[in-house]
C-alpha cells in the first residue's frame, strides 16, 4: 500500500554564501562578539515550500507544474524523504525510486553495465537483483554494444535512456520523475510512455514534474500547480 501524506509542509533552507560558509568568518564572529556576528551572518533563507498539503494514494498519477523555481524539485525531494520539512509533517509509505536527471552513482569512466548495477544498488536493489535487471534494461534501452563502453561516450539522450530504464526496472511502488524524459528522441519518448503506462497500471504512485503540457496530459490524472512554493491548484 503506497501512500504519501503531506500535512502543511513547509521547507525553508538557508543559502550560505561564500562568506557565511567560511570558517574564518565564524571565528571572527565569535571573537568579536554579537554585533559583528550579526553582520557576517547575513544568511539568505529560501522558503521553497509553503504549507503544502497533499494526500497521494495508490494509482495516483500526479503532474507537478509551475515556473522554474516554483518548488517542483523541492517537493519531489521531500516526497523522496531527502528533504525534511522544517514545518508540518510527511508520511511516506512504499519503496521510492527517483529519476532526477543524470542518475546518482553514475561514474562516467565505467561501462554502461557497471553503471546499471551501481544505479540499481543505490536505488535499493541488492547486487543480485541489480544484475538480474540487466536483460530487461538491455532490451528497453536498445543501446546494444554501447553498454560495454564507458558512459562518458554516451550522448545526453543515451544517458537518459539508461537512467530511466534503471529507475523503472526495479518496480518501485513510488516513482518520482523530474522533467528529463524530454532529452530522449521521439522513439524513446514513445517507449518511455509505454513503460510508464505499464508502471502506473501496477497501481503505484507516480509523480512527474514537467513543463510539457503534453506529457502531463498523457500521464497524469491530477495536476498540482506550484507558485512560489505554494499550491495554487
Amino acid at each position, binding site marked *: 500500500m503506497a501512500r504519501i501524506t503531506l500535512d502543511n509542509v513547509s521547507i525553508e*533552507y538557508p543559502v550560505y554564501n561564500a562568506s557565511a560558509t567560511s*570558517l574564518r568568518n565564524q571565528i571572527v564572529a565569535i571573537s568579536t562578539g554579537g554585533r559583528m556576528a550579526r553582520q557576517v551572518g547575513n544568511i539568505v533563507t529560501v522558503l521553497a515550500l509553503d504549507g503544502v498539503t497533499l494526500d497521494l494514494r495508490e494509482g495516483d498519477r500526479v503532474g507537478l507544474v509551475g515556473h522554474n523555481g516554483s518548488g517542483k524539485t523541492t517537493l519531489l525531494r521531500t516526497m523522496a524523504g531527502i528533504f525534511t520539512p522544517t514545518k508540518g509533517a510527511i508520511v511516506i509509505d512504499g519503496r521510492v525510486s527517483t529519476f532526477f536527471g543524470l542518475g*546518482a*552513482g553514475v561514474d562516467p*569512466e565505467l561501462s554502461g553495465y*557497471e553503471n546499471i548495477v551501481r544505479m540499481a544498488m543505490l536505488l535499493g536493489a541488492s547486487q543480485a537483483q541489480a544484475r538480474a535487471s540487466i536483460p530487461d534494461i538491455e532490451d528497453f534501452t536498445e543501446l546494444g554494444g554501447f553498454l560495454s563502453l564507458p558512459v562518458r561516450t554516451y550522448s545526453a539522450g543515451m544517458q537518459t535512456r539508461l537512467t530511466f530504464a534503471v529507475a523503472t526496472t526495479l518496480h518501485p511502488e513510488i516513482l518520482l520523475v523530474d522533467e528529463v524524459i524530454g532529452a530522449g528522441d521521439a522513439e524513446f519518448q514513445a517507449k518511455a510512455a509505454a513503460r510508464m503506462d505499464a508502471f502506473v497500471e501496477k497501481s503505484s504512485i507516480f509523480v512527474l514534474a514537467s513543463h510539457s503540457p503534453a506529457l502531463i496530459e498523457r500521464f497524469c490524472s491530477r495536476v498540482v500547480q506550484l507558485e512560489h512554493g505554494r499550491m495554487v491548484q
Partner: protein
Amino acid sequence: MNTGLRDFREAITLLPKALYFAWSDTKARYKRSVLGPFWLVLSTIFGVVGLGVVWSILLNADRAEFIPSLTIGLIVWQLISGCLAEAPAIFYRQSGQIKDINLPSFFVSFQLVMRQIINFGHNLIVFAIVTIVYPHHASLLAFVAIPGLVLVVANLLWLVQVLGYVGARYRDLEPLIGSFLPILFFVSPVIYRAGQLGPMARVMAFNPIGNWISLVRDPLMGELPNAASYGVALATTAAGWSVALWLTTARRRRLPYWI
C-alpha cells in the same frame, strides 16, 4: 542520538553495498591506467627506498631495524592521511547520493574508509617484500596488530563522518587540512618512532595519530604496544563516536541543504 543511531544502523545493513562501491570507485579511478592501483604500491616503494636510504643515514639507524619500521609507518600513515584529506569534501563530492537518493550519511563515510582500506590492502605487498628482505622482527606477536588495525579503522570512521559534516558546512576545512597534512606527517612518528624523541616522547603521547600508528607498528616490530596507546585509542574512539553520532543527529536533516 536517535537520528544518528538510525543513520548508522541503516549504513551497517548497507555495508556490502558500500564495499561494492568502494571497489567499483577504485576500478573507475584507474580505469585507463596500466598499473592501476599498483601505482600506489609503486609510490610506497619509492617512499620506502628513498626515505629509507636518506633517513637511515641522517638518523644513523640500522637499516634492518629502520626500513621495516618506516614501511609500516608509511602504509598506516597513507591510510590515515587518505581519509583525512578526502573526508571534508566527501558529502559534497557525492552530493548525488545525498540529494537524489535517501541514503544514510554514514554510507558515504564508510565508502571512503573502505576505499582507503582497499588501497591499504594493495600497500601490504610492500610490507610483504620488506619482511622478506628484513625478516628479523617477524614473530607471532604480529597478530596483535590486527586488533590494533581494527581500532585505527574505528577511529577513521568517526573522523571521516565528523570532518565530512563540518566540511560540508564550512568549505575552508578541505584546504585547511590539506595544508596541515605535510606538517602532521613530520610531527607524527611515521619516519621515526616516538621512543627516539627522548624526553619529547611524553609530548608525543598526546598525538593520537602516533598512538594509532604504534598499535599496528609495534606488534609487527616484535614488541607489545604500550598500554597507554590502547588507552588513547579507546578514548578517542569513544569520544569521537559520541561526537559523530551527536553531529549526525543534530545535522543530518540540514546536510542535503548544505551541498
